[in-house]
C-alpha cells in the first residue's frame, strides 16, 4: 500500500516533468517556455518532498532543498523575464523563432 502511494507520486511527478519538457520544446512564446520551466521545477519539488515523506532522510533535506529550489527558480524567472523584456524592446516580438541570430 505504501509502495503504491509512493510510486504513484513518483509517476505523477514524472508526468508533470514531461509535460514541462514538452512545453519547453514546443511553445513559441518565450514566456510560455519560462512557464514550462516553472512546471519542471515544481515537479522536481514534488519528487523531493515525496522522498522526504517515504524515505528516512537525514536532516529533512527533502524539505530544505525544495525551499532553495523555489528561491532560485523565482530569481531565475525574474532574470529571464528581464531578458525577454529587453529582447522585446529590440525585436518587438517575443516569439522564439525570431530569435535566430545563432543561425548560420
Amino acid at each position, binding site marked *: 500500500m505504501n509502495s503504491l502511494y509512493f510510486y504513484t507520486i513518483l509517476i505523477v511527478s514524472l508526468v508533470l516533468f514531461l509535460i514541462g*519538457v514538452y512545453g*519547453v*520544446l*514546443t511553445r513559441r512564446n518565450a514566456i510560455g*517556455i519560462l512557464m514550462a520551466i516553472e512546471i519542471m521545477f515544481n515537479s522536481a519539488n514534488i519528487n523531493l518532498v515525496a522522498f522526504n515523506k517515504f524515505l528516512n532522510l537525514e536532516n529533512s533535506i527533502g524539505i530544505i532543498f525544495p525551499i532553495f529550489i523555489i528561491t532560485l527558480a523565482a530569481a531565475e524567472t525574474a532574470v529571464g523575464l528581464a531578458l525577454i523584456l529587453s529582447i522585446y524592446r529590440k525585436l518587438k516580438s517575443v516569439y*522564439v*523563432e525570431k*530569435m*535566430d*541570430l*545563432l*543561425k*548560420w
Partner: protein
Amino acid sequence: MVEKMTLLLLILIPLLPLLAFVVNIFFGKRVGTNAAYVSLAAISVSFVISLYLFFGMLAGGEKIVEYTFDWLNFGSSGVKLGIMLDGLTAVMLVVVTTVSLLVKLYSIGYMNGDPRYSRFYAYLSMFTVAMLGLVLANNFLLLFISWELVGLFSYLLIGFWYEKKSASDAGKKAFITTKVGDLGFFAGLLLLFTVFGTFNFKELGELVIANLASGSVTVGMLNLIGILIFCGAVGKSAQFPLHVWLPDAMEGPTPVSALIHAATMVAAGVYLVARTFFIYKCAPLAMAVVGYTGAFTAIFAASMALVAYDIKRVLAFSTVSQLGYMIMALGVGGYTAGMFHLTTHAFFKALLFLGAGSVIHGSGTQDIREMGGLGKKMKITMVTFLIACLSISGIPGFSGYYSKEEVLSAAFNSGNMVIYWVGTITAFMTAFYMFRLFFMTFTGTSRTEIHAHESPKTMTVPLIVLAVLSIVAGGLFVMGHSFEHLVYFGVEGAGEGGAEAGSHFVRNMSITVAVLGITLAFFMYYLKKISPEYLAEKLASIHKLLSNKYYIDELYEIIFIKPVKGLGNFLFKFDQKVVDGAVNGSGFMTVLMSKLQNLFDKVIVDGAVNGTGWIANKGGEILKQLQTGFIQNYILIAVSGLFVIVLLRIIFK
C-alpha cells in the same frame, strides 16, 4: 756463355732501329736533318751484327739459338713468344739490314728538303724493326704481330706524300688488300693453334709429323691450314689475285719502293711460306696451290710489264713476277732455290729501283717515252742499271743467273713440266721487258727536252754497292754450296741441283731464252728495226688488255668496292635516321611527358585539392543546417541524448 752473347746481339739488332724511331718521331723537330744520321747509325750497327752472325753461322755450321718467354698464361697452357737464329734467319737478317742501310743512305739525297724528313726516317727505322722482328720470330704469333706492323708502316710510307690523293689512296689500297690476305692467314693460325696447341716452329715441325703418323690429324686439315696461311703470303707478296696494290704503291717515294717492294716486305710472304714449309711438305694439295699461284702470277705480271711505260710501274710488275718465281720455287719443293732467289732479287731489284729513282731525280720525269740517251749524262746510273738488268735476265756470271737456274731446275726436277715451261717463258719475257726499259731510257737520242744530271754521291754510292752485290751474291752459292748448307729444309740437302742431264738442259734453256729476250729488245728498241707501234697495232686488243692490267682493278671495283661503299652509305643514312629519330623521339617524348604531367597535375592534383575544398564546402552546407539558431531544436536534441544515456544505463545496469 756464347749463347747468351748471341742472344744479346740478336736483341740489339731490332732494338737499335727502334731507338732511332723513338728519337726521330718524338724529337723530330729538334733533330731536323740529322734524323738521317740517327737512323743510319742504328742500322749500321745492326748491319754489322747481322754480318757477324751470318758469317759465324757459315763458319760454325748449324747452330740454332732460341729464346722463349711466356706471354699469355691460361693456367697450364699458354702462349709463348720468342726469338731465334737459324740459317734462314741469318740470311734474311743480312738481306734486310743491307738493303735498309743502303736505302737510308740513298734517301739523304733523294728526300732532301722534304718538310717531313725526320718522320720519313722514323718510319723507315720502324719498318726495319718490324721486318727484323718478323724474321727473328720463333713462332707464328710473333711473326703475325710483326707482319701486321710491317703492313702498317708500309701503309704510312706508301702514303707518305698524303697531300696527293693518289698517294693516300694507294696507301689505303695496299693496306686493305693485304688485310684481305691477312684474314686467311689469321684463320689458318687459329686453326693451327686449335689443332696443335702451339705456335712455335720447331715444336710444330715435330708435332705435324708425329700427329700425321698417329692419325690424329688429317692431310685434309693440313691442306686447309696450308692454304689459309698462304693467303697471307698472297696478300703481302702481291700474288694473283691480291696483286693489285703493288703497281699503285709506286706512288710512294722511290726509296720506299726499293726497300719495301723490292727487298723486304714483299719477301715476307716468301719467308712465311718457307717457315711453313713443314706443313706444305706433308700437304701436297696446299703445295700445289702455292706452286700454281706462283707460276701464274709470274707470267701474268710479266705480260703486263711488256707494255708499261712508267719506269716504276715496269719494275713493280717485274717484282710481282719475280715473287711469283720465288713462290713457285717453294711450291715445287725448291726450298733453297726460292730463298736464294729472294736474296739475289733483293739486291738487284733494290738496285733497279734506286737507279730508277736516280733517273727520276735527274731527269724529272717517270715516263720512259719521254726519256732517251740519258746514259751520256748519267754514267754511273746507267752502268749499275745495266748490271741489274743482266742479273735479272739471268746472264751467267751475275747472281740472278744462279738463282734463276736453281728455281728452274727445281721445277724441272719436280716433274711438273707445266710450271717449268711457264717459268722459262717468263724468263724470256723478263729479259725482254727489262732491256726494253734499259734501251728506251739510256740509249739513243733524247725524245724530249729534258735536263739530265747525275745524282749526288749519297745516291750513287748505294747503287754501286748494290751492283757489286748483284754480281757477287751468286758466288756465295757456288762457293762450296755454303748457302745450301745454311738454308735447307730438314736433313735432306734440298739443293735440287742433282740430276745431271736435267741440269744441263735447264741451264742451256735458261741461257737461250735470256739471250733471245735481250736480242729481241735490242732489235726493237735499239736498232729500231722492228717497230713496237706496228706490233701494238697488229695486236691491238691484246695490247689494250695488257695496258689496262686485264681490267682487274675495274672488276674489283664493281664486285667489291661499290657494294661495300654502298653498304657504308646505307648504314650512314640509317644511322642518321635512327640516331636523329632517337634524339627527336626522345625530345618529343619529353615534351609529351611534360604535357601529360601538366594535365595530370591540373586534373588530379588540382582536382584533389579542389575536391577537398568542395567536400568541405558541401559538408559544411549540409551540416550548417543543424545550426538553426533555434534553441528549442537544441533542447530537443539534448533531451534525446538524455534519453539515450538513460536507456543505456538501464540496459547495461
